[in-house]
């Protein structure tokens, strides 16, 4: 099997920021790559370079076997892009948006029109087809934008944070679409801030931070590094935390973290429910009262903690951006 996307040593600097500091990537044809990283990691910059929108300061890349720097227009014929912010024309209707894109892919008028109708139907936008996109919800815009990327049935698809800012329904819809495309043999590179999403959709995950690849592998491989699920609990009395740690530590598969202020205890575990009930039994025996307890799946933060020994720095920004997008 050949590789649909190959990037070697991509570097991109802005005045005082190094957005990419030597990124290498390989995506085999027909597979899905999840590019995972916090805000500012360099995900968008990578996508923009691979889709010919931005020239790197150093490095090279090939998409669908074509050199991105040497033959950008040949690359554009083989790719579809749905950027981080939906690039739909608000004044055009959904139909007009897609027809325009089809004409600009040089499908010809008839074919462009038929394709527009077809895509509107498969993205559940038929009812809104003849309304200006200004009236669309965030999820509908996102779907229209993705439909635009699919007009010419491109063999390689780039999706930059396709679910950021969507409500849960919109998110699962988008997941379905991406899974269908992947099954149909399209090579997909998607970026995300959520491990859960990369886990569900991607064959292979590349984790980047500060413009560098810090880990890569299948989701299972990564999770093994991170340690799968977490047991998380909040005790009623902070003075009992040390004792709780003593009795629980043998149940874990990694070092627990203890937060005195929040009276919280977090520990990587494997074995899920059995570990949970054993933990509860032990705490009961010690008569340590709980305010909260549960198992949770690892988040990007846990991956980061495990890989770099520090939490993602951009947490506050993340939250600001998400709430901004929901407005």
């Amino acid at each position, binding site marked *: 099997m050949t590789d649909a996307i190959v990037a070697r040593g991509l570097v991109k600097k802005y005045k005082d920021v190094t957005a990419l500091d030597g990124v290498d990537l390989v995506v085999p044809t027909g597979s899905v790559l999840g590019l995972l990283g916090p805000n500012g990691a360099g995900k968008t910059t990578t996508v923009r370079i691979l889709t010919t929108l931005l020239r790197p300061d150093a490095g090279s890349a090939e998409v669908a076997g074509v050199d991105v720097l040497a033959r950008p227009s040949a690359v554009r014929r083989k790719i579809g892009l749905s950027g981080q912010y939906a690039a739909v024309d608000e004044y055009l209707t959904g139909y007009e948006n897609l027809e325009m894109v089809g004409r600009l892919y*040089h499908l010809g008028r008839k074919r462009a029109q038929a394709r527009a109708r077809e895509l509107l139907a498969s993205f559940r936008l038929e009812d809104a087809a003849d309304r200006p996109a200004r009236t669309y919800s965030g999820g509908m815009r996102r779907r229209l934008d993705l439909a635009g990327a699919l007009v010419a049935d491109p063999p390689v698809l780039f999706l930059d944070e396709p679910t950021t800012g969507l409500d849960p329904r919109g998110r699962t819809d988008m997941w379905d679409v991406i899974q269908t495309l992947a099954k149909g043999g399209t090579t997909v590179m998607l970026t995300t801030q959520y491990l859960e999403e990369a886990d569900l959709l991607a064959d292979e995950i590349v984790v980047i931070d500060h413009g560098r690849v810090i880990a890569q592998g299948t989701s299972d491989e990564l999770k093994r590094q991170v340690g799968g699920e977490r047991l998380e609990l909040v005790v009623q009395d902070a003075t009992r935390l040390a004792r709780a740690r003593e009795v629980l530590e043998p149940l874990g598969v990694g070092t627990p973290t203890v937060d005195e202020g929040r009276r919280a205890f977090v520990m990587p575990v494997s074995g899920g429910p059995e570990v949970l009930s054993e933990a509860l039994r032990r705490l009961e025996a010690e008569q340590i009262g709980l305010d909260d307890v549960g198992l949770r799946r690892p988040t990007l933060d846990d991956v980061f903690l495990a890989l770099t020994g520090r939490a993602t720095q951009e947490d506050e920004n993340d939250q600001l951006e998400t709430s901004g997008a929901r407005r």
Partner: protein
Amino acid sequence: MSALTVLSDANVVAKRNIIKIKRVPDLLVFTTLSPIMFVLLFAYVFGGAISVPGGDADPELYREYLMAGIFAQTVIFGATITGAGLAEDVKKGIIDRFRSLPMAPSAVLTGRTLSDVVNNVLVLIVMSLTGLLVGWRIHTSFWEAAGGYLLLILFAYSISWVFAWIGMLVPSPEVVNNASFIVIFPLTFIANTFVPLESLPGPLRTIAEWNPVSTVTQAARELFGNIPPGTPKPTGWPLQHPELYTSIWVLVFLVVFVPVANAQYRHSTSR
């Protein structure tokens, strides 16, 4: 990329912009509202105090004299829409979408400037009707009048390309709007648009004589037959050959700014 592809892609882009003119008619209303106010102000408030070159202050003669100046100012402001429109497309990511498609790169700006011509034609129709209402008339042949309109449109088209470059350079439509107002407003006033040049003090008068806004106005005035009888021959080479001098500016603007704007489109990035 063949010339045919460029044209057909430009046509697709232009069509998209024209749909916007149709869906957001406020845009057209606002580009014509202020010149209509200008017509009324100058025709009925200041007009009585401004004497046209040929004679004394005659409000009727002045209204005929005024319209070519209004046309020139209006189409020039119409041309600035190119810049604001492109800056908005950059900001909204539409330009990124275009740049990721296998279309002819030059089609984006070509389509934009062409649709702004359509906008300016509509604007000229509205302003001509306004002119007719206040007593302006064309006194020449059909072909001369057509020549006058054509020159106005061509002049605005060449300025559109200057603004295409600015629109790709400056990342916000508001900045483009404010900047163009600051530059264009004095340019259209230090000219013969509203008052005869004879009334301007020395150095300003020289600037005005070489200002292409003056010559395009002068050309339109001549071609519409709106020069009051008995007007002395204008001073300065540009105003004596207004069609030629204006055409030179049109060519210079196009030769310089078509490539410069397109290069900026290819190399600039939105964020």
